[in-house]
């Protein structure tokens, strides 16, 4: 059996082969046999990205080489850079290509911290929201443990939205000592859209650079880097139908980012390493398509999402929607629910067995579900946080997928609840 890029592991059914029909993903479910509702983890390859990737795979050439083959690769990279910049309203020179979101986040947090501390040793405070992805939290924590940073976790409200008053209070008290602020554009677990514009406005008064992880926002919300006023922003390919392994940090010129990865001096010397022309071309193609198709996509997935949430609430007692109730304040493709009395791993196992792929919506370490720091920051108890599921829709999601998930869920929750009681006994 040939393993194509469109394979997923399908729980009790073993390897499930995804559809390879040429009629495009919208025509019908892209994943045959699997109801794939975990697009926030990674989304199937967009046909435009697949075309760009396949076209690039046989192209020899290191983009740093000076001969014709190198120039061809370089051209692919620079065209990708321009396409990505256009899609996100950035300048091509703002873009630092990376291996993905985590690397871009590390570069932003560490690179900004080191740059600001060098310019003004008093600036040691690193402000991040308490609901950031681990790719932000862990570098910030590392700076606190190893580089003399003072980490400030900014609180969120019950919906997972940043508490702006807490930010203002912090800046009033310590504005001169802050090296950087990082607040995600939209939360990856509960889908809460963050008040990035207000953060930028507040930070500007104190001359503090602001970074936003926009990995989940691109393709779902209008993301305009120039208009946002952000100094740096993380994006990645595989959440928008691009391949895993390509991402970027958008960094305003003159920011003076200190590199994390040293070597051949690629990407303005900020991020060394040979650039992958095929991956970047596919990333740019996917991002371009996601941005071009954003409005109809967002409308369509929001309708599907709303139907999923309404169906679950009607059929499953004890199901609670987490994150903002107002659809305008959350990602259109995100539904996050907790099921009282259930454990996330039971829910996930049962749904996986039924061919429905979702996430427990919590960070994993070595495959072990930990209570979600996002839900805990929102004020949920350990018990409430235990039975959480994140459904994330995407460009391949169909009405049938939602119907199938709704058919499976009531029995799954009932059974998981019985298992939850067994564990408590």
């Amino acid at each position, binding site marked *: 059996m040939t393993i194509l890029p469109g394979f997923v592991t399908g729980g009790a059914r073993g390897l499930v082969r995804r559809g390879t029909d040429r009629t495009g993903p919208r025509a019908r479910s892209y994943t045959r046999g699997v109801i794939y509702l975990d697009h926030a983890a990674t989304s199937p390859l967009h046909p435009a990205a697949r075309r760009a990737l396949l076209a690039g795979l046989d192209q020899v050439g290191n983009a740093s080489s000076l001969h014709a083959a190198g120039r061809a690769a370089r051209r692919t990279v620079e065209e990708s850079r321009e396409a990505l910049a256009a899609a996100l309203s950035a300048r091509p020179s703002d873009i630092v290509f990376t291996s993905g979101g985590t690397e871009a986040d590390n570069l932003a947090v560490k690179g900004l911290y080191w740059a600001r501390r060098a310019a003004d040793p008093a600036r040691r405070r690193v402000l991040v929201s308490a609901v950031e992805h681990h790719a932000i939290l862990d570098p910030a924590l590392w700076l606190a443990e190893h580089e003399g940073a003072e980490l400030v976790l900014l609180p969120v409200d019950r919906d997972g939205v940043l508490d702006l008053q807490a930010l203002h209070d912090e800046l009033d008290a310590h504005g001169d000592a802050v090296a950087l602020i990082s607040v995600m554009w939209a939360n990856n677990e509960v889908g809460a859209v963050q008040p990035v514009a207000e953060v930028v406005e507040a930070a500007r008064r104190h001359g503090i650079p602001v970074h936003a992880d926009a990995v989940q926002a691109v393709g779902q919300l209008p993301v305009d880097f120039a208009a946002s006023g952000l100094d740096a922003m993380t994006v990645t390919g595989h959440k928008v139908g691009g391949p895993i392994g390509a991402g970027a940090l958008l960094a305003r010129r003159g920011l003076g980012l200190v590199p994390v990865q040293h070597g051949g001096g690629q990407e303005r010397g900020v991020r060394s390493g040979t650039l992958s022309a095929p991956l970047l071309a596919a990333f740019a193609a996917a991002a371009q398509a996601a941005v071009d198709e954003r409005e109809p996509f967002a409308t369509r997935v929001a309708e599907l999402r709303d139907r999923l949430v309404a169906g679950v609430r009607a059929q499953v007692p004890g199901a609670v929607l987490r994150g903002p109730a107002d659809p305008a304040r959350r990602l259109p493709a995100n539904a996050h629910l907790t099921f009282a009395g259930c454990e996330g*791993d039971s829910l996930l*196992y*049962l749904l996986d067995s039924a061919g429905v792929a979702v996430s427990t919506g919590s960070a994993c370490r070595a495959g*072990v579900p930990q209570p979600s720091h996002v839900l805990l920051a929102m004020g949920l108890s350990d018990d409430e946080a235990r039975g959480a599921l994140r459904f994330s829709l995407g460009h391949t999601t169909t009405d049938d997928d939602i119907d199938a998930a709704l058919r499976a869920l009531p029995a799954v929750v009932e059974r998981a609840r019985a298992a939850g009681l*067994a564990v408590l006994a």
Partner: protein
Amino acid sequence: MRVLAALSGGVDSAVAAARAVDAGHDVVGVHMALSRTREEYRTGSRGCCSIEDASDARRAADVLGIPFYVWDLSERFEATVVADFLAEYAAGRTPNPCVRCNEHVKFATLLDKAVALGFDAVCTGHYARIVVRDDGTRELHRAVDAAKDQSYVLAVAGPARLARAMFPLGDVPTKEHTRAEAAQRGLAVSAKPDSYDVCFVADGDTQGFLHARLGVRPGDVVDAAGAVVGRHEGAYAYTVGQRRGLHLDRPAADGRPRYVLAVEPVANRVVVGAAADLAVAQVEADRPVWFGAAPDAGAAHRVQVRAHGEPVPVRVERADDELVAVRLDEPGALRGVAAGQSLVLYDGTRVLGQGTVRSTRAPGDAR
């Protein structure tokens, strides 16, 4: 049957799961995460608590072509096995955490959760046999490989729980056969070393673990006459029969090695004496679990009080729902039996029942 195969990341559970797959069962692999603060790699001979072990378990499931999940049972493990371990040592007793894990986690929480989720059985890599009689009753027997037999640590689970257990390795002639089978099946864990230390105690340093968790409480080490012969940093860290690590100031009058005879937690004293003083003639164990009817008083059977201890012949003095009391045929055939240890009663290879040692009597002290 729908079978949940508990995969520790070791060779035994991997081969057991493979055999369950071969038998035609619908098998799902589950690795139990028993510690939230996991070490990255295996250290020494500890069991299954590292990220490396979880990863080995996942690769075994991949090779077998079965789904795989990690279930976090760390809270339950801490609240039962670790808490019992600490409480028992603090009370001057000697626990067996593997027995408690089988009692409270593997054949309790894991099994109950599996059944609630629709599984018919839990499959593990334990070396023991479950024999189903013609009348449908189930018996727990020693494994064919006596050197690897684990019926001693499984007996506590009792017949009702073990009715849903599956031990495919019970008839393996030797552990080397298991390794060979693993290699032949392409399981990368075939050469992984055996684990035998307590899985949650780093470096096998039980005293260090107890000191860290229970605090330092200095006190006296005394001889049977009450004379102080040394100091300790917490009586709880000693176990009856222990010889090493006593660090006594004064040698014994006869120059022979001394052993821990008793741990007195209230007085915070450790009593030491000669090897001869460890001899046991009678043992009483409480919280009994019986496979079938309890044996009659006067029946001749064998007891085992340590995981790899020799079974010794006994007469049953009392066996009921509250207590099991046995008298050794040969007084002194057992030495240094501590309260808290598991006592398992055997009829040949068959497990009759299990209890937790409450007290012992020395030959001269016999009733």
